[in-house]
């Protein structure tokens, strides 16, 4: 008999085995996604204890709700969705709020007409390949993320770091695809602005010739 618990075993098969009571299958699923959940939580919360809490809560919740998981989404999307809610809950608690709703009404700032214009435009002094190797760059990246509103931060992390599609991100956060797109654009533009102010070459700063937006 071949061991079904190898790295190539699809998530769906492990889910089926776990639902049937196979602890090994559940542990294999946990091992497969725990690093991603922890990384997402660290980038959302920047606090190891909180990130650990989110990670443990996420997999306890997976255990509790596994029967209810019908596979209408990818297992990975489902796990990241649970983790996202857990991370937001901590952020709201820090702010003294009790609501965890992600489905809240679209804010006035979330439409395409109010997308901020790029201000500091300059080529970077170094390529991303060189930058990722520098230790202070992680700090810079995390600081820029922290300055994003958490709703924009989460969309950026799920889409651009975790690699979910627009559709999957929308499903994970219970948002419309249009809303995800606008939030993603805001996040990308704001991060670009922040990073370029530090990484851009001031000697090569460009000024728009028709810089007359109000």
């Amino acid at each position, binding site marked *: 008999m071949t061991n079904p618990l190898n790295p190539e075993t699809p998530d769906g098969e492990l889910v089926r085995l776990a639902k049937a009571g196979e602890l090994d299958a559940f542990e294999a699923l946990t091992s497969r996604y725990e690093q991603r959940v922890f990384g997402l939580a660290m980038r959302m919360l920047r606090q190891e204890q909180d990130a650990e809490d989110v990670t443990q809560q996420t997999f306890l919740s997976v255990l509790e709700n596994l029967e209810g998981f019908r596979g209408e989404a990818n297992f990975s999307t489902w796990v990241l969705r649970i983790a996202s809610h857990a991370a937001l809950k901590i952020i709201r608690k820090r702010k003294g709020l009790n609501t965890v709703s992600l489905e809240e009404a679209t804010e006035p700032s979330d439409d395409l007409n109010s997308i901020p214009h790029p201000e500091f435009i300059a080529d970077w002094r170094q390529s991303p390949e060189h930058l990722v190797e520098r230790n202070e760059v992680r700090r810079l990246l995390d600081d820029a993320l922290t300055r994003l509103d958490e709703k924009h931060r989460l969309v950026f992390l799920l889409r651009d770091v975790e690699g979910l599609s627009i559709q999957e991100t929308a499903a994970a956060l219970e948002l419309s695809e249009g809303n995800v797109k606008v939030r993603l654009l805001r996040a990308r533009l704001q991060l670009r602005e922040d*990073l370029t102010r530090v990484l851009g070459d001031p000697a090569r700063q460009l000024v728009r010739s028709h810089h007359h937006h109000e």
Partner: protein
Amino acid sequence: MKCEELLAMLNEYVDGTVDPAVCVEFEKHMAGCNPCQVVVDNIRQTITLYKDGQPYAMPIQFREKMHDTLRKKWKEKFPGSENAL
């Protein structure tokens, strides 16, 4: 295409999901507008930097503790399961 219109299509362009006809317009604009070209480059570099950034490693002691907790919960949920290690 104006700079504002380009900005509104930025996601689709960077993600390669833009309509081919629009893509031609987009690139025509960038060829004549250096600031927009640089913004697009910056956005691509920003995404790459986050995607390829150093991951956070989960502490090993925490991992062990969490797996213990999960195993305990599992046994409460499936009391009969003999394959529980």
